[in-house]
């Protein structure tokens, strides 16, 4: 959670695409709802009675190891796959109700190739027209989203000649066409170089508050940075779900990485391994216990969230450590999503 917030690129008002004319609305708090959804491929059970409720306006992550059922769940939300049993609803409609969801659901599928012979602009215009836009509006919308992903220069290029990163961004552009209410992104930054991945992350962050975003990804740091909430899947089952703060226990524990004393400091008379002020830490109001992992040099401090908050505890723990001349390498709230997923999907 260290990235600086970046304002999304300004859009030229005259080139903004108007909203699709006749969106069929249904009032609801859940943007995406899965009720006891099961998917089998022959004998193989890919998703097992999964129930999820993704609130409108959230950026929601689907997390899990390979074979956890993320992509299958994602594909059912997008209507690519039909559940063996259970119900998948997007904006109150079945995920296969194309007419009702036209222009309201944008999807970035994983590994779906763009049509090689189509020019980028022409492809986006075709997609926009299928969403019900008139030709002139479709052109404006296509230019709008292509600018948003930083690819306006590619307008006349054939999709088959784009690099992987460029193709990914064009695919992302088609998902954002017409400002959909729900955007599903499957591995949006997979295979992208760090700079482009960063830009895509900023773009996704910029969607916050404008629409509901569901992201399936292996990149847990990315999800932790971008998402409001997430579901952790394993072997097709829901292992845990909740806000990122809940999942990482960010409001119940902090972790301090203790640095080693440098040779120069030892030479100057400092202790090689200064003793940690564990008693002082234990006496901080609200702190219930601590854990010191010598090998990882990680000090975990657990507290009662009703009595105090993470920021207060961080300040007091750091004060105690600095007074004891302990070197500090880093501080995190909670366990980190990665560690949490490792703990939950360990077996």
């Amino acid at each position, binding site marked *: 959670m260290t990235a600086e917030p970046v304002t999304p690129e300004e859009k030229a008002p005259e080139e903004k695409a108007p909203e699709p004319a006749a969106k069929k609305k249904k009032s609801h708090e859940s943007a995406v709802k899965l009720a006891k959804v099961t998917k089998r491929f022959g004998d193989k059970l890919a998703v097992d009675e999964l129930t999820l409720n993704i609130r409108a306006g959230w950026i929601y992550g689907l997390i899990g190891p390979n074979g956890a059922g993320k992509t299958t769940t994602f594909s059912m939300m997008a209507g690519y796959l039909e559940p063996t049993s259970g119900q998948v609803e997007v904006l109150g409609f079945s995920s296969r109700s*194309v007419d009702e969801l*036209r222009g309201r659901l944008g999807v970035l599928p994983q590994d779906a190739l*763009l049509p090689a*012979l189509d020019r980028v602009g022409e492809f986006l215009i075709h997609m926009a*027209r299928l969403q019900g836009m008139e030709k002139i509006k479709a052109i404006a919308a296509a230019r709008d989203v292509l600018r948003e992903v930083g690819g306006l220069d590619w307008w006349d290029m054939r999709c088959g000649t784009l690099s992987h990163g460029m193709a990914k961004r064009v695919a992302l552009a088609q998902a954002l066409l017409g400002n959909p209410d729900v955007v599903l992104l499957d591995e949006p930054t997979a295979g992208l170089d760090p700079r482009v991945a960063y830009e895509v992350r900023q773009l996704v962050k910029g969607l916050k508050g404008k629409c509901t975003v569901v992201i399936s990804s292996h990149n847990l740091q990315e999800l932790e940075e971008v998402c409001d909430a997430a579901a952790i899947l394993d072997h097709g089952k829901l292992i845990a779900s909740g806000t990122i703060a809940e999942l990482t226990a960010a409001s119940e524990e902090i972790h301090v990485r203790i640095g080693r004393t440098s040779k120069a400091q030892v030479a100057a008379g400092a202790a090689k391994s200064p003793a940690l002020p564990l008693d002082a830490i234990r006496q901080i109001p609200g702190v219930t216990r601590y854990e010191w992992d010598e090998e990882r040099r990680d000090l975990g401090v657990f507290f009662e969230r009703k009595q105090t908050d993470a920021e207060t505890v961080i300040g007091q723990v750091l004060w105690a450590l600095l007074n004891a001349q302990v070197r500090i390498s880093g501080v995190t709230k909670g366990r980190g999503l990665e560690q949490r997923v490792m703990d939950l999907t360990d077996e």
Partner: protein
Amino acid sequence: MSPATEIALVAGRELKKSIRSVKGIILGILTLLGSFLAVLICIWLESGVREKIGGAGTEAFQDAYEKGAVKAGADPAVAHYVAHMPISLITFLKVLVWVGPLLVALLGFDSVSGDLQHRGVRYWTVRSRRWSYLLGKFFGLWGIVSIVTATLMILSSLAVLIRGYITIGDFFTWGVRCWLISAFIVGTWTSVAIFVSSRFKTPLLALLTTFGAFFCMWLPGFIGWAMRWGSALSSQGDSPEAQAAASSVVSNIRWYEYLYPNGYDDLLLSPKPMHVAAGLGACALYMIVFVGLASALFAKKDV
């Protein structure tokens, strides 16, 4: 958005894609070369018939033509009717109905399977009804093959027009009718090709299966033809009319011969409205069954 608009958008894109793809261009060139070959055959055939009847007039020519057609298995009524039609145009019709399935198979095998293979179809399924996507593919393929056959017809007709074998009037009456007949027949092959293409994720498998399916469709036609010739040979003592009737598709068509769409050309050329209606009905039924089945299965398919 109405399904008709979706279909038009998908079909329009399919047409554009086929025209500019390398495969489409090569096939187009080969088809045009083939059409010139057909013209050469026509010229050779027509010159041969004219030489045979010597300096005799049009009536003698038509008489020789009618007898030849009956001998080749045409229905006597149809043969009499088409005897007024230039040999060139009926030859072109035969070429079109034979080239049609080949073009359909080569242009259409990856029409849907290509999108399924790399999951490109996913960009469409969130925006268009699956059945209208499939219908768009069907009309797009039917359209592009019909455009190629129309080009072939026009170029070939121009060549024989210059040669003096047909008149402009012949082209706009018989020529257009021949093309329409070939287009209806191509529609039936297209429906089967789209059905097969929508069932496979590997285009090569779709291509092989399309050829296999087309062979299975040709086989009943061939069996019917062999049976009719068998009957004709066994009725040697009968009158020539009886022999002709026994060997004719129109008078003696068996139910399974309807499985072979190229056999409908005699029905569609017939002067009798019932025959034409039967031919058109068979074409329509073919298309409805295969496109309908493909749509129903595709709607349930995991993409």
